[in-house]
């Protein structure tokens, strides 16, 4: 079963996202700040990360950069779906430059999120 890590400092949003992804048959882990999110990536080696941008301690962009710079090529290739209110053109440029795979803009539709997660997951090496 594919494993998705959801990192969002808003527990209500994180719970809702986790609920929708579990309904897809995915295994989901939730973390509520960037630092613990990055630690969880190393610990759990998820197939995909759904990542908020604005978070305490370490923001989503820093997490994304750290992940892409990881010495382990498999970890560095983990797809990252940014779920964020920062969705203006310059934000998208910064996000993609940091290594984001795709964006879902807040306010978001959980149906769109599910579609984008589905699209990102097949790219994961078996």
């Amino acid at each position, binding site marked *: 079963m594919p494993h998705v890590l959801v990192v969002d400092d*808003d*527990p*209500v*949003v994180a*719970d*809702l996202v986790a*609920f929708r992804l579990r309904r897809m048959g995915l295994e989901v882990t939730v973390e509520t700040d960037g630092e613990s999110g990055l630690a969880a990536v190393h610990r759990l080696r998820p197939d995909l990360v759904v990542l908020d941008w604005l978070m305490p301690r370490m923001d989503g962009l820093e997490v994304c950069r750290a992940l892409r710079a990881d010495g382990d090529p498999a970890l560095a290739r983990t797809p990252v779906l940014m779920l964020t209110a920062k969705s203006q053109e310059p934000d998208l440029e910064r996000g993609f430059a940091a290594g984001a795979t795709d964006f879902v803009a*807040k*306010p*978001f*539709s*959980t*149906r*769109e999120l599910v579609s984008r997660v589905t699209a990102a997951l097949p790219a994961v090496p078996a």
Partner: protein
Amino acid sequence: MNSLAAPAAVATAVLGVLVVVLLVAVAAVHTSRARRLAAAQENRAELMAVVYDLLDDGDEQAVVDAPADLDEVLLHLLPQLRGADREAIQTALTRRGVVARAVADLDARAAWRRGRAATLLGSTAGRDHLARLTALLADRSVEVRCAAARALGRVGDPAAVHGLLASLTTARPLPAGVVGMAVLDLGTPVLPALRATLVTGSPAARALSADVVGLHGDVIAGPALAELLTDPRQPEDVRRAAATALGRIGDPGSTDPLAEVLVDVALPALRRAAAEALGRIGDPAGAPALLAGLTCPAREVAAACGDALVALGPEGSAVLADAAARGGPLGAAAAATLDAAPRPGLLVGA
């Protein structure tokens, strides 16, 4: 010695007791907080189960019957969601009476309650309460007025544009930025009203309408904007907003009035706006006026003219090179502009 030892022992004992009491109190606070957090988490999990059911088209009565805490969860989620999820939450808030209570709160004595009610109605109530929200634009509290303006923008009824524009010039005017964002939220259906305002509105409304039609790239507004731009009776900020809007719209048909203002008007800020607009439009027909502006004593005007000539591309560069070859003060300014211009060729070769 003995007479001093006894009070010291008592003081030490009292201090020790105080420390113990303090430690116990801190431990009690921590325990209580941990219990509260655990209870809140458990409560949230129960409420989220109701939310999940709601978003899965589940039992509507369960949503209506859920405890009052659900309102906070729904109100928290509402601005985060869109589409069918958002509609489901809006319906649930209406069925739970939250919208009706917000309507009642529009008359509350506390400003925070009026502001919260306006915000909530903007997110949930559709167009049913437009008149009440419009009336709130004249509220005694600026925070409430701003909340009402944002709410009207979110409701999205084009009819709100008149109240929003009028709020710029009442006894308690709203900040133009807040009104502008709300009017932008109303989208292109309000463009006819904004075009009319360019002609008949107050100066503040004309300036804001010019800004918004420019941001929408409304070509039809071009002639009215050009009228405002070239009319010396108009306030400077209105003319400047018209210049900027014409630049954003980008119609080469605006080159002549912009060039006329750049050459003939003595107001540096307006001339600068005209030069920037000419650069945005990119019509080589604006080059002579921009070249003449290069030697303007107002540095911001000269700099904007130089930037605009560079923005014209090869035609602008040719005009600058020709002027530089002829020398004199204009030639020196043209040469300096060319020197400062970015050179894509260097970047490619780097």
